C-alpha cells in the first residue's frame, strides 16, 4: 500500500498476511456467515499476539508499534484485512484501546491489558439511529448524579458490540461531549444483533437505559471530549479507508486475471477496448484511493492540523469510487461475480460497508466545507 515501508513494517505486514491466509482462507470465511460471532476467539487472541490491538496504545501502558507510528502500522494491518476480507473486531478494539491509553493508561491498566492481549474486545459506540443518524450527531446523555454517571440513549452499527467486554460510549453532557467506558454486563445495557451484509463482521444496536456507572468510568474530561472524539473518528476513518483500499486492490487483481483468462468471440475479454478503458478508469480510482488513504494516515499520525479535512477527503472519495469500482468488477465478471462461491462478493461487501458507516460520501463532503470555513475563519483571526 505505502510506497516505502521499513523492514519492521514489512515483517508486520508479511506475518499478518500469512496468518490471515492460513487461518481464514475464503472457504473458511464463507462458513462464518453461520457463526453469530463472526470469528473464533482464538483467532483473535493469536492476532493480538502479532500486535494487532497494541498499535494505538503507548508503550508504557503495554502497547507499542514496530515503527513508532502506530496508526500507520495499523493502517497496514487494516489494508491486509481488506485484501482478505478478514474477520475480527479490529477497528473497535483499537479505537477503544487507543482512547483509554491516551486518556489515562494508568487508571485503565487492567482494561488495556485485556484489550491488548485479545482477551477482551472493545466496541466503539458512536453512531446513533435515525433521527440522529447523521455523522457526529450525539443524542445519548450522560448526567452526573451523586458521584455516579447515569447514561441513556441508543447506539447503532456498533461493531462487534455483542462480542465486546467494553463499550466506549460517546454521550452528551450539557453543551459538551462525555465519554464513558461501559462494561457490557452493566445493568441497563441491552445489546441486540443487527442484520448486515458482511459475511463475518457483526454489528449491534446498544440500548442504554439509566445505566449507572462509577466516576472511574469517565474517559478524559467530562463535557470536553469533543477533541478526543474527533481524534477517534480520524483514526477510525484511517482504518476504514485502508481496509477499503485493500479490498479494492484484491478485487481489481481478480478482475484483471478474469479478463485475461476469459475468451469471447475467439478473443480474450482483455482485448476489448471498451473493457480496457473501463479498467483504466478503475486503475485511476484505485491509485487515487491509495494516495488518499495513505495521505490521511500520515496526516492523522502526525497530528497535522488539516488531518480532519484529509480523512474526509479520503473517505468521500473512497465512498464514491470504491463501490463503483467493485460493482464494475462484478459487471466485468458477469453472473459468476454475484455467486456465493466466488470470492468477489467478499470484497464487495467490505467496500460497501465502509462506504456507508462512519459517514457517507455526502456527509464527509459537507464536513469538508464546514472545516474549510472554520480554517478560513481561523486564518482571518490570525491575519
Amino acid at each position, binding site marked *: 500500500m505505502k510506497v516505502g515501508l521499513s523492514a519492521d513494517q514489512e515483517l508486520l505486514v508479511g506475518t499478518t498476511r500469512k496468518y490471515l491466509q492460513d487461518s481464514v482462507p475464503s472457504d473458511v470465511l464463507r462458513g462464518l456467515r453461520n457463526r453469530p460471532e463472526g470469528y473464533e476467539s482464538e483467532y483473535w487472541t493469536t492476532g493480538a499476539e502479532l500486535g494487532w490491538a497494541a498499535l494505538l496504545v503507548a508503550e508504557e501502558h503495554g502497547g507499542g508499534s514496530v515503527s513508532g507510528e502506530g496508526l500507520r502500522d495499523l493502517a497496514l494491518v487494516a489494508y491486509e484485512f481488506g485484501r482478505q476480507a478478514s474477520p475480527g473486531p479490529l477497528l473497535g478494539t483499537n479505537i477503544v484501546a487507543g482512547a483509554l491509553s491516551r486518556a489515562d493508561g494508568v487508571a485503565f491498566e487492567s482494561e488495556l491489558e485485556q484489550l491488548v492481549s485479545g482477551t477482551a474486545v472493545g466496541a466503539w459506540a458512536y*453512531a446513533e*439511529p*435515525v*433521527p440522529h*443518524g447523521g455523522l457526529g450527531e450525539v443524542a445519548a446523555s450522560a448526567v452526573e448524579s451523586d458521584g455516579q454517571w447515569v447514561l441513556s440513549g441508543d447506539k*447503532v*452499527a456498533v461493531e462487534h458490540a455483542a462480542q465486546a467486554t467494553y463499550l466506549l460510549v460517546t454521550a452528551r453532557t450539557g453543551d459538551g461531549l462525555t465519554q464513558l467506558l461501559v462494561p457490557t454486563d452493566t445493568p441497563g445495557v441491552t445489546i*441486540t*444483533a*443487527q*442484520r*448486515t*451484509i458482511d459475511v463475518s463482521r457483526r*454489528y*449491534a*444496536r446498544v440500548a442504554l437505559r439509566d445505566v449507572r456507572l462509577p466516576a472511574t468510568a469517565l474517559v478524559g474530561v467530562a463535557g470536553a471530549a469533543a477533541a478526543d472524539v474527533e481524534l477517534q473518528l480520524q483514526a477510525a476513518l484511517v482504518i476504514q479507508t485502508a481496509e477499503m483500499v485493500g479490498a479494492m486492490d484484491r478485487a481489481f487483481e481478480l478482475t484483471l486475471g478474469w479478463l*485475461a*483468462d*476469459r*475468451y*469471447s*468471440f*475467439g*478473443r*480474450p*475479454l482483455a482485448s*476489448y477496448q*471498451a*473493457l480496457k478503458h473501463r479498467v483504466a478508469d478503475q486503475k485511476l480510482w484505485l491509485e487515487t484511493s491509495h494516495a488518499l488513504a495513505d495521505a490521511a494516515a500520515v496526516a492523522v499520525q502526525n497530528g497535522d492540523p488539516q488531518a480532519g479535512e484529509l480523512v474526509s477527503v479520503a473517505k468521500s472519495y473512497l465512498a464514491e469510487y470504491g*463501490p463503483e469500482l467493485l*460493482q464494475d468488477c*462484478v*459487471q466485468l465478471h*458477469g*453472473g459468476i*461475480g*454475484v*455467486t*456465493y*462461491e466466488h470470492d468477489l*462478493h467478499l470484497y*464487495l*461487501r467490505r467496500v*460497501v*460497508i465502509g462506504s*456507508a*458507516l462512519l459517514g*457517507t460520501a*455526502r456527509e464527509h463532503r459537507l464536513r469538508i466545507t464546514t472545516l474549510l470555513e472554520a480554517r478560513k475563519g481561523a486564518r482571518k483571526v490570525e491575519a
Partner: protein
Amino acid sequence: MSEIESVEDFRARARAWLAENVPRIGPDHRGRSFVRPDDEELAEVAEERRIQRLLFDGGFAGICFPKEYGGQGLAREYAEAFDQELAGYSFPERLQVPNMTPCATVILEFGTEEQKRTHLPKILRGEELWMQFLSEPGSGSDVAGAKLSATRDGDDWLLNGSKIWTTGAWWSDWGLCLARTNWDVPKHRGLTVFMVPIHQAGIEISRIEMLDGSNEFCQEYLTDVRVPDSDRIGGIDDGWTVGTRWLLHERSFSSSPYALHPTGSNAYGSAQGDPAGNLLTLLESAGRVDDPAAREDIGRAYALQIATSELDRRLHALILSGKGSDQLAAVGRLMHGVAGAQLATIAFELAGQSAIAGDVDDDVLGDLGMRYLLRQAGSIGGGTTEIARNVISERVLGMPRELALDRNVPYREVRTAPSGGSSGARR
C-alpha cells in the same frame, strides 16, 4: 363474438372478470428478489399455475397468441389494456419471462404446426413451464459459442454438455436448448435448437447460490440425453436463424405483448405498486423528509422510472411504425440495466447506515444493502449491457463490427481459453 370487440369493451370485461376471479396483491407481498424457502417457492409456483389456468379458462391467457394455439388472437392494444387492469392483482410472475417470451414466442415463430399445437396450449394453461437452456459456463455473453453438443443417433439426437443461469430449472418442465451439431463449420453455422424435458435421468440439476443466499438459478449437466428429431426447432445447423430472433425477443421482453406487465410493475414484471408511493415511503422510513439531498434523490428516482417507461413506449412505437429497426430493443435493454443499477444505488444511499446495520424488523431499509450488492444483476442477466452497447453501435447505428477471431473458422479451431483448450464448459 363474431364482431370484433372494441378495446374498451374488452377492458370493461377484463376489469369485471379480474375483480371476480383473481386475488389482489396483499400488503405483505414480497417481490421475486426476496429470498424464500423452497417450499414457499414451490407453493407460489403452484399458485401461479393456478392463476394462469384461471386466465385461460376466463379467456384472457395469451392475448396476442393465435386462437388456434389457445390464445385470444387479439392485437397489442388489448394486451396493454389488460396490463393496465391487472395492476394490483396477483398474476403469474414466474410464467412470463422466459416462459411466454422468448420460449413460447420462439416456438410460435419457428415451431412446426404440430409442435405449436402440442406445446402452446399447455403453456397458456400453465401446464408446461419453459426455461432457456442458453448460456454455458465457458461462453458468457457469446451465446453462439455454445459447446453443448448434439450428435445424431438414428432418428434421435444425443445431447451432452452443460447449461447455466437457467432460472428455476428445478420447478420448470421444459428447456429450449441451443446445441452444437457441427464443429467443422464456423461458430454460427453449426448450431441447432431442441426442446428438452428438464426432469429426466440424463439431466442433473445443480442450484447456484447467489451472494444473497437465493438459489433460483441452476446449472444443468446433460449426459446422453436422447431427443427425438421431431423435437428439433428449425433446421439442422440453422439454429442461429432461430437464435438471433430468440435473443431479440429476450432483449425486448419488457415491451413484449406476449408477456404480462401489469402497469406499475418493474421491468421484470414484478409488482411494485405505484413508484411514487414507494419512493415517498422510503423517504419517510429513512427519516429524511426534510433533507434536501434525499428529496432530490427521490425526484431523480421517480424521473428515472418515468424515463424508462416513456423510452419503452417510444421504442415500441418506432419499431411498430417501421421507423426504427427491431434492434432498437437493445436501447431499452440498456436502459433497464442502467436505470436498475441507479435506482438500487439511490435507495441504498438514502438508507445510509440503516442499509448496512439495520434492525432485524426493518423491512423497508434493511433489505436495501443486499439489493445494492446485487445491483448489477439487471445489467448481466438476459444479455449484458455490454452486448446491448455492441448491438446499438453496430446494428442500430451502423458502426463497424468488432473484430471476431471466430468468423469463417471451423469452430473446433477457435480459441476459447488462454491455454487453447476448453475453459471448463463440460465436466
